[in-house]
């Protein structure tokens, strides 16, 4: 009887686990079926590296959006990574318990704010500031990078903090015993030892940034031209789908799914490399 119960429980969990995997399989198959025809029709190279996006004139080139996604994500990483790593070092090594107890939940809360709220906040506060002090329309790569930098902070901080805390105590104690001061111990012993975790944190943060849609629809400006400066509006792969899906039909719709395929592949590469790095040790 007990054996049967156990088997039954095991099977139920297996079914539930399958349902999450089958969701992934369904989504993958669906976007492939929907997007592949237009990719083969236009040609993979022309689709990915085409400079013009005008579905009404049957021009499907997503290169400006690739540039958009890469530039905004890079900007977010440049702003967010140093802040995130410094913050995790502070939390792991320097912060007194009381400060840590306030900081940690506060940073977790940052992850809980809906992205549309980030977008709205950016639209109301960041964009007018950029427009007034730096010029341009305000909706720009810079605005998107700032918002995304804030959005990826929780990912970067919590994962790098965990990987610093996971180091054996002897590393730090040994370094201090050799006469290093605390900063030297962190810089030359602990950070290199926690490198794989920190790199994984950065990559996961980048994955989060490149997949973000709602916040950036509101603040990037969504122009389909190659940007000339960080104050130019730009469109990312995600916002291309988000902004045009409502009205799209026929080939236009297929092209949006094909955009999804490209995005899917990019994110898979990013996540796979994060897993590879954390496993390597």
């Amino acid at each position, binding site marked *: 009887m007990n054996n049967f119960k156990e088997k039954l429980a095991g099977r139920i969990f297996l079914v539930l686990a399958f349902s999450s995997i089958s969701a992934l399989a369904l989504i993958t198959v669906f976007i492939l079926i929907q997007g592949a025809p237009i990719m083969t029709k236009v040609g993979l190279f022309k689709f990915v590296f085409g400079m013009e*996006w005008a579905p009404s004139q049957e021009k499907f080139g997503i290169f400006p959006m690739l540039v958009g996604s890469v530039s905004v994500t890079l900007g977010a990483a440049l702003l967010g990574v140093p802040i995130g790593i410094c913050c995790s070092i502070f939390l792991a090594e320097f912060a007194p318990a009381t400060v840590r107890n306030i900081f940690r939940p506060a940073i977790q809360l940052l992850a809980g704010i809906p992205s549309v709220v980030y977008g709205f906040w950016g*639209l109301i506060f960041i964009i*007018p500031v950029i427009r007034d002090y730096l010029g341009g329309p305000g909706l720009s790569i810079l605005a998107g990078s700032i918002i995304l930098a804030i959005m990826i902070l929780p990912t970067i901080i919590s994962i790098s903090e965990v990987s610093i805390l996971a180091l054996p105590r002897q590393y730090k104690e040994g370094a201090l015993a050799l006469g290093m001061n605390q900063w030297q111990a962190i810089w030359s012993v602990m950070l290199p030892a926690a490198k794989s975790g920190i790199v994984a944190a950065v990559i996961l943060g980048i994955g989060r940034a490149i997949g973000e849609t709602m916040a950036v629809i509101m603040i990037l*400006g969504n122009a389909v*031209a190659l940007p000339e400066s960080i104050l130019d509006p730009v469109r990312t792969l995600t916002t291309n789908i988000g902004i*045009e899906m409502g009205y799209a039909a026929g080939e236009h719709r297929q092209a949006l799914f094909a955009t999804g395929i490209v995005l899917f592949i990019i994110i898979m590469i990013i996540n796979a490399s994060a897993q590879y790095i954390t496993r390597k040790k």
Partner: protein
Amino acid sequence: MIMKLKNAFKEYRPLCLGSAKHRAALLAPFFALLLLALCLTASCSGRHNTAVIVAGSTSVQPYAEILAEEFSLLCPDCEVDVQGGGSSAGITAAESGAADIGLSSRVLKENEQHLWFVEIAKDGLAIIIHPANPLSNLTIEQVRAIYAADISNWSELGGANNKIHLITREEGSGTRSAFEDLVMEEKRITTKAIVQDSNGAVKQLVSSDKNSIGFISLGLVDETVMAISLNGLAANWDNIANGSYPLFRPFLFICKEPPTGQTKQFIDFTLSDQGQQILIKEGLIPQQTELKDE
């Protein structure tokens, strides 16, 4: 690595490939779910059979939804189901019978003329700028040049020496295609233009940026933005009614054949005083307004 995978697979084998009875137990929940889904879709499509299906232009859709809501108050047994899809899709749906009424925000083309249609209202298109912008009048040619990026600074139009921030709608939007037909003609909207995905977002941006220009449905213009005059003619109902303000488009209901039954009731309601009042309240120009030159 591969060995590891093989071992893992072996561990799961008894679970996956057990006796037939066990496999059935494993699959039962799937079938139950499938059955449930089938029942749900069946009950949905069953309901559709009696409802009036209205589909098409997403510009007309919000107004049709309001009309459908009011109509269901008047006639509790009637059901009107409003869907989007775009003008062309709506016309096709009406022709094929997939929808009882097709919605269009453009006039019928030559090969669509055999369909029955009625104009329910007109919608004006307003070119809007920030209220602090000293300009208040442009020609259509100037607007076209701005959107084609031939003019990029307000000083070229007699305004302040600032770059023009162009705001447009996304590809596929009915408002965008109306703007392209009525203003751009053979020119194309520059890819440098900022793209927003709703009338509201365009209005919000224009109201916050004093160097911007955009276009929205006339019914949605309020004091936060300024609708500019075209060729010296203000964007208002009177000028559209007498045919002098050129930017407007018809909202059409299209049927395969002259409507009957509930479909006719809904169209009659839309054209009645009550229906037209609803549309006026929502900012449209009523259907009774005859155009001078048409």
